[in-house]
């Protein structure tokens, strides 16, 4: 069974608007990661937030983590056409050899 579940499954916004995607998970985690996948390509790591962190920023990305609610959100500010992609959250274990469990993703479309 999947650990992370993204919401919504699909999101379409106007260029320049902010996009928010949510992820919920079931069990305790060491870290949570967000990845981007452009159509038909491999995944690219965006950001990792550890279980003892509440918020993290990277450029136009802002990730929050609420371990009490077992949820995370990814905010992309001032969206661009190049942000059109699928976004996945992934929950990580306690070593790099642990399995990372991916959700089924949010498909983001940016309208010009």
């Amino acid at each position: 069974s999947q650990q992370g579940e993204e919401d919504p499954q699909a999101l379409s916004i106007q260029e320049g608007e902010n996009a928010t995607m949510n992820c919920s998970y079931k069990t305790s985690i060491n870290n949570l990661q967000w990845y981007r996948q452009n159509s038909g390509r491999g995944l690219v790591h965006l950001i990792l937030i550890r279980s003892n962190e509440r918020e993290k920023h990277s450029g136009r990305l802002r990730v929050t983590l609420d371990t009490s609610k077992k949820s995370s959100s990814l905010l992309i500010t001032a969206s661009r056409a190049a942000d059109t992609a699928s976004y996945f959250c992934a929950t990580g274990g306690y070593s790099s050899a642990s399995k990372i469990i991916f959700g089924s993703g949010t498909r983001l479309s940016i309208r010009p």
Partner: protein
Amino acid sequence: DVKVTQSSRYLVKRTGEKVFLECVQDMDHENMFWYRQDPGLGLRLIYFSYDVKMKEKGDIPEGYSVSREKKERFSLILESASTNQTSMYLCASSPPGTGVFEQYFGPGTRLTVT
């Protein structure tokens, strides 16, 4: 720059054929992973390896095997391809321990079994 390459972007095979998917990373990473990705199901882990000649089953290992003879290369083998193995296959690698857990992905191989 980190680089993971996969032997083919697109592959078409017939039912019953033996299929080899190869993955090579140039980052000296200990850990390597094979996933399959299907619409609505996200990524599912098939096998992973944390060292040369070591392998661990993931969530869906049935119908697959793997080989890791060299650190940089991790091969996925479909012993007898079936139509339900039509999918996108993604390889990834990650360095060991010390709090670095992100995975680096190859571009994927879209396999069609007819």
